[in-house]
């Protein structure tokens, strides 16, 4: 395809349209978050008066503020769940990619079934169980379901990556006199790390995104994550809608996603398609 041809123009226009369509809603939220309460209803795309008040209000009052505690909760819960999920999934993925055992397709098929499982069907029983054993409205209470629904994603992605690793290198290292631990640390771990990192990003995004468990298994800002906290924001008085504050909080939780996407675009694409297409 050459510059100046009709085909070239069509594809170029396509690219521009896709980029604008993908980014526009984020731009729009950012603009709302910078509007003053008086102008939030002016329907303009770009604010007439600019302000950072919406962001400041979110953190006013430290730990009693609307967003600080939920933000900490979101980060910690997603990080802990991601770490455990990758840890457990890498055992399973290693077994599936490397060892031969009966029940392999059962484990893979079971994970797939769980990836398709409707979370709403577990919410009632979990609510009841968590209250009975005292982990309702705690980090643990959210981490466990996140782990469950993130594991299939992690296992599928890791199996796809682990299959690509040239495991013969392990024996080669042993022949050269490396101990099993050295062979693992110096040869296998560096090869497995990129895949594990990619799986970790996908799992983190998954946990970061959850809303259903966050609103059903928590009852206070003690362990509520940002998506749930935003949904329960209230205006400063009964007569003001918290539009600006919600938009500001929404932009803040989008920042990590934007950073991930900017820095790890290739990895995310590879991870997303590895599990589904190569599996």
């Amino acid at each position, binding site marked *: *395809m050459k510059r100046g041809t009709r085909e070239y123009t069509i*594809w*170029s226009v396509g690219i521009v349209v*896709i*980029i604008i369509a993908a980014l526009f*809603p*984020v731009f729009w*939220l950012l603009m*709302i978050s910078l509007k003053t309460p008086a102008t939030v*209803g002016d*329907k*303009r795309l770009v604010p007439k008066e600019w302000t950072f008040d919406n962001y400041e209000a979110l953190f006013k009052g430290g730990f009693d503020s609307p967003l600080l505690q939920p933000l900490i909760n979101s980060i910690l819960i997603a990080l802990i769940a991601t770490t455990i999920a990758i840890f457990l999934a890498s*055992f*399973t993925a290693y*077994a*599936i990619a490397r*060892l*031969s*055992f009966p*029940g*392999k*397709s059962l*484990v893979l098929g*079971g*994970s*797939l079934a*769980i990836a*398709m499982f*409707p*979370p*709403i*069907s*577990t*919410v*009632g*029983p979990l*609510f009841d*169980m968590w209250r009975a054993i005292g982990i309702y409205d705690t980090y643990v209470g959210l981490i*466990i379901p996140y*782990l*469950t629904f993130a*594991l299939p994603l992690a*296992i599928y992605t890791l199996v796809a990556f682990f*299959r690509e690793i040239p495991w013969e290198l392990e024996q080669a290292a042993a022949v050269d006199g490396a101990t099993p631990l050295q062979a693992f640390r110096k040869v296998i771990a560096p090869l497995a790390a990129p895949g594990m990192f990619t799986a970790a990003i996908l799992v983190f995004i998954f946990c970061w995104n959850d*809303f259903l468990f966050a*609103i059903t298994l928590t009852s206070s800002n003690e362990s509520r994550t*940002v998506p749930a906290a*935003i*949904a329960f924001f209230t205006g400063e008085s009964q007569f003001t809608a918290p*539009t600006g504050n*919600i*938009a500001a909080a*929404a932009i803040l*939780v989008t920042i990590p*996603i934007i950073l991930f*996407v900017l820095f790890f*675009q290739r990895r*995310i694409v590879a991870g997303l*398609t590895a599990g589904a*297409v190569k599996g």
Partner: protein
Amino acid sequence: MSTAAPPQAGAAVEKPKKVGLTERARAERKLAWMLCAPAVLVMLLVTAYPILYAIVLSLQKKDLRFPDESGFAGLDNYITVLSSGLWWTVVGNTLFITVVSVIIELILGMIIALVMHRAIFGRGAVRTAVLIPYGIVTVVAAFAWLYAFDPATGFVNDTFLSPDDKAWFGERGSALFVIILAEVWKTTPFMALLLLAGLTTIDEGLYEAARVDGANAWQRFVKITLPLMKPAIAVALLFRTLDAFRVFDSIFIMTRGAQDTQSVSILGYDQLMGRLNLGLGSAVSVLIFLMVLVIAFLFVKGFGAAVPGQGDQR
């Protein structure tokens, strides 16, 4: 991409080695089971056990507001749900949202995948841009669309799309339209990336040959691209259909189910969390679970064995 290779095929190749289980093979099995056990247990703890518990709860009269009236209820909860007009309205909504958004996503996703595949410049930029909707928190995206269409804050009513002040969330049709729009925006990139992965596996030489034989762009697409991408399309459709069927976040934020826009997940949530009626809510949960099973079954039947995991032993 291996599609129709059933697990047995790979196992059969390995069979000769396994005749008379050696000490080593037995140790390998044991290790494999030990490595899989923790993940399997966690997955079962939060899915199998709760769904069994939900089945038990659904057969009982259990309303946390009236704890004294608890007891065995047989199939009463199911009869209540299935004989209510609300349930069928809600199932209709969910199926409507699912079918319409998945069809639009498939078409748009295919176009975007083709653009990304053919792009000579800006390949990285496009991929980065489309990953934003994929990665963004669904609740955040829902608020963006809510504020765009809300007559009090949105610009949509000032554009050519809607010259007069339209209350988009004030009636069922337009509310469902915005809900579907939000779904499509959020998940088309995922569809596009899966389809793109399928596209890149197609041999360019086929297109060259077709071109030499005088096939135009449309013919090349229909005769080469589509048939070769059937497995990728099947996987993408299966994932997205079941995902769309669970739609919850966007509806919760945009209408909270008002104007008859509830999905099955919203209805389940309202019964369980809003009314604290664990019996009825669990019946709804079990019915949703059964519907997901049926959809998955139909897909696997309809598309053959083109499901990931089936071709695992390459």
